[in-house]
């Protein structure tokens, strides 16, 4: 399809489009954030995608997860992700891993990627990804949501930004009390993919060693430094 990326061309040159095509990105989680992240990467033209999730869809996912449909309840989220990506952009190679990432399988899953995107719902698993991404020298885009609130930052190997964001040993945040609506994952996923684009194309200013903290209830966007 010659015209697929014609509307990208003012901001993404043909050479850059080729760079995206040759990039390999791992999206850990195919739920609220992951569904949007994968959709946006597929439409952007990132050529090799890995979608990781061991979970299946249930009714509670329908309020916010793009890949979740009445017709696919019970289906593995990673399988639905592959179907959707192939429908959107058949030029993309999609690998799926129907497992939850953990300490044992993390290195094998993440190895060989140019970039990792956080679409997880567990702070402990995020810590594992940060550690493995650092050991493998892979940039890691962090995103998380809780009700009206969200946060995004880009973590280059060694930044250890999660250490500033999650001080105590808790595995969950305010989302356990608030839940998540339809729009917060879409917003945070969009910012994560814009960060991913900049990392892959080496352009623009990254949200690095700082975090973008979003409060949609009060209409506030705060950029906060993550250094002592």
């Amino acid at each position: 399809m010659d015209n697929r990326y014609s509307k990208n061309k003012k901001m993404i040159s043909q050479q850059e489009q080729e760079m995206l095509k040759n990039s390999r990105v791992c999206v850990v989680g195919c739920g609220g954030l992951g569904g949007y992240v994968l959709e946006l990467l597929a439409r952007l033209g990132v050529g090799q995608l890995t979608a990781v999730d061991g979970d299946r869809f249930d009714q509670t996912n329908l309020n916010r997860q793009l890949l979740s449909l009445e017709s696919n309840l019970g289906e593995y989220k990673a399988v639905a992700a592959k179907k959707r990506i192939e429908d959107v952009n058949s030029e993309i190679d999609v690998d799926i891993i129907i497992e939850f990432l953990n300490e044992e399988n993390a290195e094998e899953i993440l190895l060989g990627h140019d970039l990792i995107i956080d679409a997880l719902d567990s702070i402990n698993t995020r810590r594992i990804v940060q550690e493995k991404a650092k050991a493998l020298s892979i940039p890691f885009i962090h995103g998380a949501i809780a009700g009206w609130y969200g946060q995004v930052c880009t973590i280059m190997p060694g930044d250890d930004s999660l250490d500033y964001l999650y001080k105590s040993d808790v595995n969950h945040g305010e989302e356990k009390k608030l839940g998540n609506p339809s729009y917060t994952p879409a917003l945070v996923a969009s910012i994560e993919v814009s960060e991913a684009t900049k990392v892959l194309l080496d352009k623009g200013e990254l949200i690095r060693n700082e975090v973008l903290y979003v409060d949609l209830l009060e209409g506030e966007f705060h950029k906060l430094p993550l250094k002592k």
Partner: protein
Amino acid sequence: MEITVKFFATLREGRGKITTYVTEDSVTTKDILDYYEINVEDVSILYVNGLDAALDKKLEHGDIVSIFPPVGGG
């Protein structure tokens, strides 16, 4: 001395956005959390004057403490 305390996101519920803590005693960031009944596990980012601060950091007159709750969903 006076310490400005800023609350963010869900921590504003019942506390407002900003307040002033007045004391004649020596206080740490942990004392501030205790005074406003905020559990340590309900805090992610904790700043004094815009920089990451430890729980035992001693506060001075005019300091601004900012407290954000953790966000962990996906």
